Structure formats: structure tokens, C-alpha cells
């Protein structure tokens, strides 16, 4: 791994406590989360059920809820937690350095 593998996504302060924002990179879209314990996570941006931006959904604890059909995922593992979501979300490593959030996309 080299330093270039990390992509600067946003400022750490851009994401509210227990919230999520959308991050587009190239032709891909991601969701970057901050939980109430000030930890950051990243997953694919679209729900695995339909092409709906998860960043418009609500974060509750470590769960993100899809704004359209209320499918839920664990933001730390990507695991589907409530129907109609049944397929896991891809997750991506995140680090916060000097007030910036970086994600590593494979």
C-alpha cells in the first residue's frame, strides 16, 4: 500500500455526529459515516436493494437505514440487517488525519 491509495473524501467536520454524507469519486458513489463515538466508516453509496443513495438515510447507532424502503445495514461491517435489504454492502477502510477523512477504494 502506498500513500496514493488513500483518497481524501471530506473534512472530518463535514459529517455531523451520527450522520452520513455522499461522496462521489470517478463514476462511483460512496457513503461516509460518523457514529456517535466519533468513529468514521465508509460503504458503497447505493443500497443493495435498489439504486437509492444511502446518504439520504438516517444513521442510528451503527445502522444506516435506506430512505426509501427502510432496509438497514451495519455501517461497520456492511451486513444487511433488515428486509428488504438482504445483500451485504461493500465497506472500505477509512482514516482521519489532520481533520481530513480519507478512504481507500479497491
Amino acid at each position, binding site marked *: 500500500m502506498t500513500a496514493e491509495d488513500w483518497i481524501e473524501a471530506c473534512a472530518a467536520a463535514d459529517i*455531523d455526529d451520527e450522520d452520513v454524507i455522499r461522496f462521489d469519486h470517478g463514476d462511483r458513489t460512496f457513503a461516509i459515516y460518523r457514529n456517535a463515538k466519533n468513529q468514521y466508516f465508509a460503504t458503497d453509496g447505493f443500497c443493495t436493494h435498489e439504486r*437509492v443513495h444511502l*446518504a*439520504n438515510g438516517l444513521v442510528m447507532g451503527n445502522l444506516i*437505514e435506506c*430512505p*426509501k*424502503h427502510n432496509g438497514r445495514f451495519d455501517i461497520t461491517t456492511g451486513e444487511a440487517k433488515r*428486509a*428488504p435489504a438482504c445483500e451485504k454492502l461493500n465497506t472500505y477502510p477509512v482514516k482521519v488525519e489532520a481533520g481530513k477523512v480519507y478512504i481507500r477504494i479497491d
Partner: protein
Amino acid sequence: MAESGMVIIGAGEAGARAAVELRARGWPGTITIVGEEKWGPYERPPLSKRQLLADDEQTPVHILREEMLVEHNIRLLTGRPAVHIDRSGHFVEVADGSRLRYERLLLATGARPRKLPIAGPVGEKLIYLRTFDDALNLRPRLAAGRRIAVIGGGFIGLEVAATAVERGCAVTLIEIGPRILMRAVPSEIAALMEARHRAAGVTFKLGAGLERIAETADGFELLLADQTVVRCDEVVIGIGAVPETTLAAECGLEIENGVKADERLATSDPAIFAAGDCCSFPHVRYGGRRIRLEAWRNAQDQGIHAAGNMLGANEPYRAIPWFWSDQYDLTLQVAGLPEFGVSTAVRELGGSAKLMFHLEEDGTLAAVSGIGPSSAIAKAVRIGEKLVERRASIDAVRLADPGVKLKSLL
């Protein structure tokens, strides 16, 4: 007749979710879904939107894929309607002559489009949209340049209008009421949606009764009550839906704007439950007001809930009514029952985005409605729904102030 089990009449959202939930809660016996359509349970929301645009989609989006049916050991009988319920014998008779014995029965029969009272050959050429096959029928008719008349300014009519415009059709929408979305949506929000349609080129005829539809050499001629004439190539009807209660009525279950259920979704026969569009029930959050909902989420939640009670959970259904409608780049959402509000706090979000909080006499939040891009309102309406659920009482000034984070009010 085979072993007695759980039988579900209706292979839609509610029926499918109930079947999976019955198994998830450990029901060890048979689970059978009986459906009239040739397709297994599928998602209906895309029918009026994406699936009218995507020419290559030849199959619906299935809710229970083959591997799920196998995994949960659910028996799915499609293409054969249930024709009779024998309550004393505890069995359902299916059109193919077979009989299904039930321990508990779920009616998830849905609703069917309300028909215009026009008989004869013209009546048969009018288009309704309820099933995937209806969508397949409508799709090629929405070709660029064609003139489409939509009768009815409810969600189906408006979503079809938006999709038809997107495909390049010339759309006239005819609504007998003074405005669109009379039944379910506050007028300020309906006005923003109407403006969006007008900007896209839809022509509205509001307060316009329909006198007559005649077939012409190249399509149809609609005569309105004020004697104006609308000429078009196709007529799409979206004037509401009627709960499908035929079987329930025939076997003597109580009917009241749908199959009459109690707050646990049990019908007047304790072995028979109801869920989804066909079911009317008293809502515990709204003083026991009897309501019936035609909404995707309600069908899902009631299916799941009824399954629990079929197994003896004995819990009242408490979910707050919620629905959405996507038209163009806007989403419209309502959580709760706005008619229970006596005053309103409006939060302007800029552009055409707006939230309305509907407050009861004592200041508790009865409902939240919103319109705008999904990114502007979806989270807010979801938070609002939680506040409605908690019977939160919140100062109207704070609700109206975009500077106050809604999440901080939870």
C-alpha cells in the same frame, strides 16, 4: 387434503413478507401463498416509474426469489386464484380444485383499480395500472409524440404523467377535484408538485368532470363537463382503488372499507387475519380511527406484523403510516395522518423543498409531510415519523426554523 398449515391468499408485498416472517419466527409447518397472477410476489412501486421507462425489463422485480422460497420452504401457487373460504372446515378452495387446510389464514388480497363506469368497446380500451402486465401493456403506448390523457390526479395518475412526459409524450391530466392529490396531501405540497408538472409541460384540467369518451379514427375524444374536448391517443385511468374483499364477504367476514380487522389485524374470525391494501383497522396512535392504507411500506409492515399475531404474539399494529411518491427530480413523502393536525409549522428548505409539521390541538405532532429532492427531505421526514410515534410535543417555532437540527429534537 394435506396437513393443516399457514395459508396466505394474495401473492403481493404483504403476503410475501408474512410468509418469510412466519418462518423466521419458527413456524414449523407448511406455509402456502396462493396468487392470482402468473408472477410470484414482486415490487409494485417501479411499475409506474422505472419499469415504464426501461424497455428491456421483461420481468418484474421479484420479492421472493427461487432460492428464498427454497431456503424458507415456502410453497408458492401462482396463476390460480383462491375461489372460496370454508370457515367451518378451515380450508381454502383454489381455482385448480385443490383445497388448502389452514391453522391460520391471512387475507392479503390487495386492491383493484376503480373502474370508470363506461361499458362497451371503448371501456375495454381504457388503460389501468396495477400489475406488471398492465405496465408491459402501457409501456410501448407511451412513445414519443403520442398524446396521453390521464384521468385522475392521484399518485398513479401523476407518476404515469411524469413518466410519459419523460418519454416525450404530450400529457393532459384531468381531475374532477379542484386540485391534485386531494385525498392524501396538504394543498401547499400538492401545489409545488403541480407546478413541477406544469414546468415539464403537463396540461391540467382541474375541476373537470368527464362527460363522455368516444373513439375516433385516430384515438379518443374526451368531452368534459364544461364542454371542452380533449383529443388523445391513449387514455390512462388512475381514479383510486377498491379493496379486494370478494372472498371475505362471501364467507361472511365483516367488511368496512375493506376486510374489517381489529388493532391486531385479526378479522371477525379469530383464525383469519388481514394485511395490506385490503385491510381496514383501527389505528392506536390516532384514537382508534379506522383507516385503510394503500402503501408499499404498510403492506410490508402489516404482513410482518400479522404473521406474528397468527402465531399468537397478540400485539397491536402501531406503525405510523408513511408513503412516498417520486415524480421527476422530486420526492413527496408523508408520515402520519395530516388531517389530525389543526395547525401547521412550515419549514422552508429553499428551492421547491419544504417540510410541513401538522400539530394537534395539544401541540403533539400528528404528521410530517415534505416535498423536494430526496437529499433535502428524506432524513427529516424519517425523524419526523419518529417524533409522531413518540407523540412528541414540540414548539412550532423550532420546527419551522431550518437552523434547528431535527435530530436534536428526538
